[in-house]
């Protein structure tokens, strides 16, 4: 960033770290010309807990609950990524029944994540109503999680090699009931927002990030798809049996805040479709692969990534043959996507910065680790 702080026309405005619209403790230093943003600088790290260092000091299994606390809005997805990475090192796969249950819970988690995103993003822009609607439906998903494994947010749902718990009696019925109830709710949200003149004025053409920029900045997930790139790791490099499900990759054209909203809304519907398909084909059988009590993967390294709700979530794991990871690297989507904030906010208004932070869908627990 050029150092022109003394230029009389330039105003430096500090936003955060304690600010309701930064979705946690994010500090953004805005350089303004009037109300126009000339540059931004993110200050992050307020939630840094040294998760990667902790990983080197825990056994492989002990580290699984920690990854839930990275992106605490999508704990199930975090756990899936790490379990898959260790399973890759061990060269084993979870049994089919476990894989289908994993898919159901991960897709429900995607819906829950997008609901939080939608509620808070709309609230930032000034629409208060959707927040309460979104949290009402999210509650239903959290209830399913709670009944399944006893926890709602950081739920440690998966284990390396499969699952700890089998489904409870009535899980299928309750999930089906959710699937029947939810589409009408998405219609409600869309009715509140999609044609809403204020919503459209605040989001269309705001925070544009082209497909080319997305690739330059390594931006993935709904942001990349909203720029028109039909890329989703569930299709590109399927894991957990995603190739068996029928679903579409929603894309946008303009890569603006409105398109990202449309993409995420459609993703909720697609995820619901996957849950519907999966719940009808849960096979019988074991839920846990043969995994030793003390996991000691052979010496080697692997990078495994999944399509988390926010983008590509990767784990680079290195084993020295011992009972603890030699190195665990988390490649978080929020951290990488946040870097594009500066590009998106150039020339925007201060009020748009709030919309742009919301549309990236960051969770600071994952940015700071």
């Amino acid at each position, binding site marked *: 960033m050029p150092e022109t702080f003394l230029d009389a026309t330039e105003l430096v405005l500090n936003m955060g770290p304690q600010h309701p619209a930064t979705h946690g403790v994010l500090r953004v230093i805005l350089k303004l010309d009037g109300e126009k943003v000339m540059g931004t600088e993110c200050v992050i790290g307020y939630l840094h807990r040294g998760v990667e260092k902790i990983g*080197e000091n825990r056994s492989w299994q002990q580290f699984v609950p920690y990854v839930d606390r990275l992106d605490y809005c999508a704990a199930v997805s975090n756990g899936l990524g790490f379990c898959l990475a260790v399973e890759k090192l061990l060269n084993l796969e979870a049994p089919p029944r476990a894989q289908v249950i994993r898919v159901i819970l991960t897709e429900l988690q995607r819906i829950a994540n997008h609901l939080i995103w939608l509620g808070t993003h709309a609230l930032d822009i000034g629409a208060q109503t959707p927040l309460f609607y979104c949290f009402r439906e999210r509650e239903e998903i959290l209830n399913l999680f709670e009944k399944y494994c006893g926890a709602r947010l950081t739920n440690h749902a998966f284990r390396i090699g499969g699952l700890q718990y089998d489904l409870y009696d009535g899980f299928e019925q309750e999930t089906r009931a959710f699937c029947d109830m939810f589409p009408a709710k998405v219609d409600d949200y869309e009715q509140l927002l999609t044609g809403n003149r204020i919503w459209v004025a605040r989001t269309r053409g705001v925070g544009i990030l082209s497909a080319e920029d997305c690739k330059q900045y390594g931006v993935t997930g709904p942001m990349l798809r909203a720029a028109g790139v039909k*890329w989703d790791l569930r299709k590109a490099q399927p894991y957990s049996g995603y190739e068996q499900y029928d679903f579409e990759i929603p894309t946008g054209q303009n890569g603006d805040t409105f398109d990202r909203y449309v993409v995420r809304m459609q993703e909720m519907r697609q995820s619901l479709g996957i849950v519907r398909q999966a719940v009808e084909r849960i096979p019988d059988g074991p839920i846990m692969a043969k995994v030793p009590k003390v996991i000691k993967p052979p010496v080697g390294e692997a990078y495994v990534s999944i399509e988390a709700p926010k983008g590509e979530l990767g784990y680079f794991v290195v084993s020295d043959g011992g009972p603890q990871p030699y190195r665990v*690297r988390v490649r978080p989507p929020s951290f*990488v996507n946040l870097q594009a904030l500066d590009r998106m906010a150039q020339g925007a208004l201060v009020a748009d910065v709030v919309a742009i932070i919301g549309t990236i869908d960051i969770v600071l627990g994952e940015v700071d680790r």
Partner: protein
Amino acid sequence: MAATPWEDHLTRSLREHFGDQISEFSTYLGQCFLAARPEAVIPVLEFLKLEVDFDYLVDVTAVDYPQRAERFELVYIVYSFARNQRLRIKTRIVDGYEPATAVGVHLTANWLEREVFDMFGIRFAGHPDLRRILLPEDWEGHPLRKDHPITRVDERWVKENLGLANAP
């Protein structure tokens, strides 16, 4: 199971261009990686991006092996949307060596390299803004080095900034 050699048209064209600057092409668990000399990394990234469509830098990270003479292993992960292929570029450097920055090739590298600097103390030559990113700027110590104990904090920083006599 050990890593097995990796050989296809991509490795042939890389070998043609870079000769003995790339010492190893291997696959392990179905994942391809290559080991290059530190000064060859940026040209390799550039070649991969411009000539063979590896246009997405997924991650830059490091692993510390204090018992080795070349202490750090830098790992670059790249992906090609066109080929739907991912590969890792690895290089070994001694403590104090300053590898060239990848920001000129991929803008993503900016924050990723700052994090590597923050956690390992590896300085990237030519980086436009090499400051700590997750820890405070005047913090001392690079926590992901293996000789950094997990409980160690920068006592001076804690005392000065949090007003605590002893770090928690």
